């Protein structure tokens, strides 16, 4: 089991190889990537910002919980931080298990919990040069421009 916040591209093949042993018959690999639009707005990249020590702690807890819940020791989670271009992997979750159902279910459970709990935020960069924090509602600054994400 291993988890990490990383500042360099995620090596998907290395992560898959890391979890797989001859005792496993199934490997699931979930990869989240940077999409070229969100809600109809063209995106040209996403900046990932983390409360690093807590994010690392939550990732480790998630992996521990997944191992206990799904009956495996073979879980690796890596999450990128910093600016990512379109198509780059922002998160990768690899789970190996003797059987396919728990391997698939564990990866699904981890990504859903990660999106709910791990303190990481997306700052979307749009093709028109504007930026916006994702999922933080419509920000209503009291003085007009205090809420500009790139201020």
């Amino acid at each position: 089991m291993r988890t990490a916040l990383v500042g360099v591209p995620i090596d998907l093949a290395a992560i898959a190889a890391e979890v797989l042993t001859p005792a496993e018959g199934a490997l699931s690999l979930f990869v989240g990537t940077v999409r070229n639009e969100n809600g109809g707005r063209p995106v040209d990249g996403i900046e990932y910002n983390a409360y690093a020590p807590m994010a690392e702690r939550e990732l480790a807890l998630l992996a521990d919980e997944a191992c206990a819940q799904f009956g495996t020791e073979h879980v690796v989670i890596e999450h990128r931080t910093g600016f990512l271009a379109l198509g780059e992997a922002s998160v990768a979750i690899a789970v190996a298990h003797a059987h396919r159902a728990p391997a698939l279910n564990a990866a699904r459970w981890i990504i859903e919990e990660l999106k709910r709990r791990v303190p990481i935020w997306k700052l979307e960069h749009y093709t028109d040069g504007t930026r916006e924090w994702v999922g933080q509602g419509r920000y209503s600054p009291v003085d007009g421009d205090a809420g500009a994400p790139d201020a």
Partner: protein
Amino acid sequence: MTVDVLLFASYADAAGAPQVRVTVATGACVGDVVAEVRAAAPALVLPARPLVAVNQRYAPPTQVVLASDEVALFPPVSGG
């Protein structure tokens, strides 16, 4: 006691700083700290019950804060 509250993402932008220093009474809880942040950083518009972590663990409004604690206040997470 003084508490330096760490801010992240849109909250840091709104406050114009990555942290805000507040003063609360000894024995104050998370809710008291949040109330002081509202007063100290009026440009930061917080929901009724914002996410708070104490020593890198999610903390309820009733949790008592110690001077040595690391307190963080942040918007809904959006990783993945």
